[in-house]
């Protein structure tokens, strides 16, 4: 429970909006009287902040961003075995092979959401394990240097020999 509250707190600070109290209905986060569901709340807060560029610049990008938001909720957050985690990280790594951001050439809600979800996973991994998902690590490392985005999450150290080029 605390994790999702902390995440919305971080994201609200990044967006420059105030987030109300987040409660939970089973595993589903609820912003009382406003929105229900992780993605729905995230998009609601973004609309409030008027940072509309985070939604993507056309309907095609928007759909791709929606897809990754859904992926985070139905897939990334529902890993029940080590193998699931391994598969998800490899998928993201392979997808990000030739990309700086998840969708298009700019930061979007897809990056923000997956960045937050990955913090816990990556922080529990060794350098060696992070090196195996090199593209994902490169993407994460790039984003964590934006302090507004990282907020109070600690900086993860990546082995620099492979990430600097």
């Amino acid at each position, binding site marked *: 429970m605390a994790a999702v509250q902390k995440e919305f707190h971080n994201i609200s600070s990044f967006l420059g909006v105030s987030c109300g109290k987040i409660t939970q209905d089973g*595993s589903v986060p609820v912003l009382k009287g406003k929105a229900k569901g992780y*993605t*729905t709340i995230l998009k609601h807060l973004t609309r409030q902040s008027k940072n509309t560029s985070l939604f993507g610049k056309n309907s095609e990008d928007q759909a791709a961003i929606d897809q990754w938001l*859904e992926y985070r909720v*139905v897939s990334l957050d*529902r890993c*029940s*075995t*080590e193998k699931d985690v391994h*598969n998800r990280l490899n998928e993201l790594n392979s997808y990000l092979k030739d990309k700086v951001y998840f969708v298009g050439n700019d930061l979007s809600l897809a990056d923000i959401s997956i960045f937050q979800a990955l913090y816990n996973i990556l922080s529990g991994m060794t350098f060696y394990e992070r090196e195996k998902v090199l593209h994902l690590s490169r993407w994460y490392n790039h984003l964590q240097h934006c302090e507004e985005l990282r907020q109070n999450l600690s900086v993860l150290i990546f082995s620099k020999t492979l990430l600097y080029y």
Partner: protein
Amino acid sequence: MKVITDRGNFQTVKILIAAKAQTAGSGSGTDLKVTEVKHGEKVVPYLTESKLPVLEVKPEKFLFSVNSAVRLLLTSTGIESDSKQIDEWLEWESSQLLPYVFPVLVNHIGHNKTDKQSDSLLQPLLTYLNTSVKNKTYLVGDSLTSADVCVFGTVYPLTSTPILKGFPELTSWIEKLSLIDAFKEAISIVTQNKGPVVFKESLLSQPAMPSPDSLTSKSTSKSSSVSS
């Protein structure tokens, strides 16, 4: 744009409804081709498991989320616009409804048996939906949106199981939407008018879907035996 699907995939109905509704709404619409692949075929190169259907928006650019594909088809011609209520229905459908409907369909249609546990887990969601559609044709506002298309696409195959008994409002909502041309055509393309039995092979070839309670029940579920 191209839909890539295996034969008889019940989720493909959603994309076809959206494509047909789009054509009806705009008069022009996108030319949507359907390409059939084998059950369980891996189409999206970066995903580790087979995920069908997918919408190939541009060559090598895939949408593997069916709901996002539906929304793209309906927004790009202005049939619907951004809405929090639609967000909420689509999130509920993909993260709650579908993960509970899927095992019920696998049991009833795939194995032709009843599994009390999966049936009972789905009940509360059907109760919620039954109340929400009471005296209504559309879930959001007074016209068709992707909320209707996505929820319908997932509950429609349940009409061939006994599980909808006791949900009269939901049953009549499904019937009402089935009469709309776009829905009728999409269903007949996917089922080839043979009824829900055509979903069987496709259902059995799909990887299990993590359920919302998979984290809490992992000590009892089979999937927790890791061999990595």
